[in-house]
């Protein structure tokens, strides 16, 4: 895969926005990979948690915002608990979701869920799902 690095991307507002929404210093990451090693959702992810941090540092906005990985994360906080640099990776992934949700780009479309899907799950599942995946 060819990757183009550019100052235009790394200095883009997107990087600042991710840092601000997540409250994390992206440059603290030294790519040890512990977050991805412990992530229970990693087998379903197209971009792994440590790669998400690298992509965010480099301003790879399009790759991140169209990734499946940010919606597969369930904020279980295992990555946060294990990061030796104290980076809250789950917060970084939340920032990426928020950037889309705040433009009304919902991941779960309420009108697409069937009555059966809604009735068969407990309220705790519906409320948390809509809180995380809708605007």
């Amino acid at each position, binding site marked *: 895969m060819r990757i183009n690095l550019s100052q235009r991307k790394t200095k883009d507002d997107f990087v600042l926005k991710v840092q601000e929404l997540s409250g994390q210093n992206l440059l603290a990451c030294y790519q040890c990979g512990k977050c991805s090693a412990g992530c229970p959702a990693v087998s379903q992810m197209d971009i792994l948690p440590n790669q998400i941090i690298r992509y965010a540092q480099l301003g790879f906005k399009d790759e991140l915002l169209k990734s499946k990985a940010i919606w597969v994360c*369930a904020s279980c906080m*295992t990555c946060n608990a294990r990061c030796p640099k104290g980076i809250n990776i789950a917060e970084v992934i939340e920032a990426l979701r928020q950037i889309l949700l705040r433009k009304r780009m919902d991941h779960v479309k309420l009108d697409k869920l069937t009555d059966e899907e809604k009735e068969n*799950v*407990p309220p705790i599942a519906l409320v948390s799902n809509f*809180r995380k995946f809708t605007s």
Partner: protein
Amino acid sequence: MKISYYPGCTLKSNAKNFEDSALCSLKNLGVEVEELPRWNCCGTVFSLATDDLIHHVAPIRNLLRVKESNSNRVMTLCAMCYNTLKRANERVKSDPESLDKINKFMYRENIEYEGDVKIFHLLELLRDEIKFENIAKKVIKPLKNLRIANYYGCMLVRPKEVGLDDVENPTVLEDLVSALEGDPVDFPYKTECCGAYQTVDKPEMVADRTYHILTSAQNQGADIVSVSCPLCAFNLDHRQKETIQKHPEFKHMPILYFTQILALALGCSEKDLRFDLHYIDPKPILKEKGLI
């Protein structure tokens, strides 16, 4: 001892077995529980974005209700409520500016919130105040030969600042099972996420998690898995339907709340255990062990 109690949405519906068994157990332990006269949804998840104050209003409003009931602490059963209420509280305690903004938003309330309510989980009450050795003395039906794998999930232990036990290797549930003379079974998936709310739009993903978590417990010889979160309970119990469709070799396994196990040992009747709410019926294994 009189305790203020915040139930949350699912304890009044799908997880009535969790609530009824907890209340019966506490009654048998001589604890008086008073449900908050008014409460609202906690929000279920703690808002992780730094600027997202509006979603902290719901949990903080509940803490005002605790103050109004003349208490300065509140007990939760649901792991997600516990985590959300406690984290929101920690957030406003460490950031007076956001507390002030939230109070201004709730200007119609009669009192202002000052960050002075303590949130605790039933497991902390059992371990730190009632104490397991005293619970052991009240056991009517020892859980002899019942091999229990204890599943913590995420929200009781992470993040460390609000977790009620060790973040990587919690043991409070195992210690409780030992006090009830059951046989706690250690397994490597005890703090591995069940997939949580992904169950709504990605049930097949949750079915895979359920498969791995429960197979691991079975490999360690567990008869049942005990849980402490209504969403984990749903995913591990009800999603076994999808699990067996994806993995035909999978063997069903009963899932019980730790409070049902406690209630059983303390002599509560079957009407307080509400086995009718389970997908996988726990009665056959409990009958086999002579517990019901």
